[in-house]
C-alpha cells in the first residue's frame, strides 16, 4: 500500500465505514452517552453522508451495572488467541462479547473489517484528549491525530483496519462531566469531518506528529505481605501528565509521609498518572519517550 515515489502522496482506500464504540468499559460514561445520543439523532433522520457510522455499546452488561467489566477487562480480549478461543459455559462474558464484536466489526485482519474504529474512553488521569493507536506507521490515525492536535501512541490492539482509542480525562468513573462530554463530542465530529474530507479526495499534506511511545510502567510501593499500596502519587506529580519527569523527581508520598523518587536514568513523560482502573493491574503511571514521527502526504484512492 505504500507508493513507489517518495514525493507522491500515499494513496489509501476510502474509509466508508467508521465504528464508534462506547462503553468498552461500562463505567466510562462519556462514550456511553455519546453513542446513545448519536443513535437517537440518527433515528430522528439526521443523514451521515459520505461515510457510514456504526455505533456500538461494546459491553452492555458492564454498562448496565456501571462497572468497568463483569468478569474480565473487555479491552484486553482482542488478541488473535482470545478471538479464536473455543467458547464453553465457563468462557467469561467479555471473551464471548469480544468474539461477537469481532464478527460485527471485523473479522480482525480481513477485508470485511470496518475501515476505522474509534473507541471512546475516559480516565481519572489528567490527560486531556489523547488518541491511542497501536502502530506508528498507521498514516490514517496519525493524520487524524495531526488534525485533532492530540497525542499519544501506545500498543493496544484493534479489530478494524485502522483503530484508535480516544481517551479523555480527568473524569471519575461513573460520573459524566459536561466539559468532558463536550470535548469528546467535538473531537468525534472533527474526526468524522476529516474522514468525509479524506473520502471526497482531499490530499492531506505531509508533516510530523509528536508521539509518545510507552517505555515502561511503575507500580505503587506495596506492603510485601498484604500487597496493599503504601503510598499515593506525590502531589507534585499528580495531574502532571505529559510533563517531563527527571531522575530524582518525587513520584510517591507514602501514607506515613516519606517521599519516594524516580530512580530511572532517563527523563521520560508520565501519563495515566493515578488511573483508577490500573491499581489492580499494578500500574501507578506509565512512562513514555517523545518523538517526532514523519507522516507522508495521503490521499484517498478512487476505486
Amino acid at each position, binding site marked *: 500500500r505504500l507508493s513507489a515515489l517518495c514525493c507522491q502522496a500515499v494513496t489509501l482506500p476510502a474509509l466508508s465505514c467508521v465504528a464508534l464504540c462506547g462503553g468498552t468499559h461500562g463505567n466510562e460514561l462519556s462514550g456511553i452517552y455519546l453513542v446513545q445520543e448519536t443513535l437517537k439523532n440518527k433515528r430522528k433522520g439526521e443523514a451521515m453522508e459520505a461515510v457510514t457510522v456504526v455505533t456500538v455499546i461494546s459491553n452492555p452488561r458492564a454498562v448496565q451495572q456501571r462497572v468497568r467489566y463483569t468478569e474480565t477487562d473487555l479491552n484486553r480480549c482482542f488478541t488473535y488467541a482470545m478471538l479464536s478461543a473455543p467458547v464453553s459455559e465457563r468462557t467469561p462474558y467479555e471473551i464471548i462479547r469480544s468474539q461477537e464484536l469481532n464478527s460485527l466489526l471485523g473479522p480482525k485482519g480481513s477485508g470485511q473489517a470496518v475501515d476505522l474504529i474509534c473507541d471512546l474512553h475516559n480516565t481519572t488521569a489528567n490527560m486531556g484528549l489523547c488518541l491511542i493507536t497501536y502502530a506508528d506507521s498507521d498514516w490514517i490515525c496519525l493524520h487524524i491525530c495531526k488534525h485533532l492536535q492530540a497525542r499519544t501512541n501506545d500498543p493496544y490492539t484493534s479489530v478494524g483496519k485502522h483503530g484508535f482509542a480516544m481517551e479523555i480525562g480527568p473524569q*471519575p468513573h461513573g*460520573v459524566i462531566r459536561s466539559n468532558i462530554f463536550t470535548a469528546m463530542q467535538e473531537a468525534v465530529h472533527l474526526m468524522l469531518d476529516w474522514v468525509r474530507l479524506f473520502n471526497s479526495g482531499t490530499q492531506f499534506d505531509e508533516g510530523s506528529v509528536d508521539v509518545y511511545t510507552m517505555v515502561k510502567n511503575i507500580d505503587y510501593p506495596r506492603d510485601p505481605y498484604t500487597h496493599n499500596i503504601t503510598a499515593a502519587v506525590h502531589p507534585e506529580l499528580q495531574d502532571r501528565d505529559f510533563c517531563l519527569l527527571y531522575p530524582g523527581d518525587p513520584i510517591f508520598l507514602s*501514607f506515613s509521609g516519606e517521599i519516594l523518587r524516580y530512580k530511572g536514568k532517563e527523563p521520560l513523560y508520565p501519563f495515566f498518572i493515578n488511573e483508577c482502573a490500573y491499581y489492580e493491574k499494578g500500574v501507578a503511571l506509565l512512562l513514555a519517550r517523545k518523538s517526532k514521527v514523519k507522516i507522508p502526504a495521503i490521499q484517498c484512492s478512487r476505486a
Partner: protein
Amino acid sequence: MGLITLPVIRRMAVCGGTHGNELTGVYLVPELERQRREKGDTLWPVPVTTVLSNPRAVKECKRYVNKDLNRCFTSAILSSPVTDTTPYEVQRAQELNSMLGPKGTADATDIICDLHNTTANMGLTVISYSHTNWVIMHIYKYLQEKITKVPVRLILLNIPICDAYSLESVAKHGISLEVGPQPHGVVRADIFNVMKEGVNVVLDWIQHFNSGKVIEGAEVDVFMFEKSVDYPRDTETQNPLAVIHPQLQDQDFCLLQRGDPLFLTFSGETVGYDEEEPLHPFFINEAAYYEKGIAFHLARKKTLVIPNIQAKND
C-alpha cells in the same frame, strides 16, 4: 453567653471504608494503626478504636456488596432479626453497633469520626445530625479555624437520631468527614493529607476539651439540608436527559438564584433553577448518587450561636 458543662470524652472511633471504594479512609485507618504501634497508646488523648467498617466492600473496591452500609443504622434496621437472606451490610451494621454502640445508650462510644470521599468539589465537609450537640458544633468550629488548605463547612441533617441512618449516629457525638473531589477507587495524596490533618485536629480538640479549659463559643455558619434534586429523566427509560451544567459543576456551596443554570441537556438546552428561595447546592455530581436519583442536594445557610463549654469529670 453562659457556660455548659459536658462530660469528658473518654473514647473515640475512627472508621474508614464504610464505602469500600472511598479510599482515603481505607488507607488512613491502617496508617493510624501503624502510628499507634510505633508510638504507643500515649500518642492520643483518648483510646482510639480504628475500624475498617465494610471489609468485604473494601476488598472488592466497591461502595457496597449488597446494600449501602451507611443507610443501615436506623434503630429499626439495627434491631431487625437476622435470617439467611439478611444482606451482608445489615449484619455488619449490627456488629458495628455492638462494637461502638449500642446506639442511644450510655455505653455508646463518645465520638465517631467516619471518613468519606466524594466526587463533588466539597473541600472538607463535616456532616452531622444535631445543631444542639455542642461537642460537634465546637469540633466543627475548631476544624474551620485550623484547616486552611481547603474550605471547611458543616451540613446538618434534620433527622431525629432513631431515624438517623448513618454509621456515626451510633456514637453520642458522631460526625462524618467528607473530603473531595476524589474519584472513587483512587487515592490522591492531597486529599489524604487533608483528611489526616482533619483527624489530627479532632484529636487535638479532644485534648483541649478534656484539659478542662473553657472552650469559647461563637457564631458559626452552617448549612441545613433542605431537599434533593434529581436529573431530568426520560419518562420511559428513566435515563438522564441532561448533565450538570458546566457553570454549576464544581460550584458546591455557591448561592443558586432563580434562573441560574442547573443542567445542560444532551440536545443543548439549559435547565435553570426556578425556585423563589436562593439555596446552596452540594454533593453536585456525586457518582454514588446517580442510582439514588440525586443530582445534588440543596441547603439553607444559617448562623448559629454556640455556647461556651467546659469538660467536667463525672
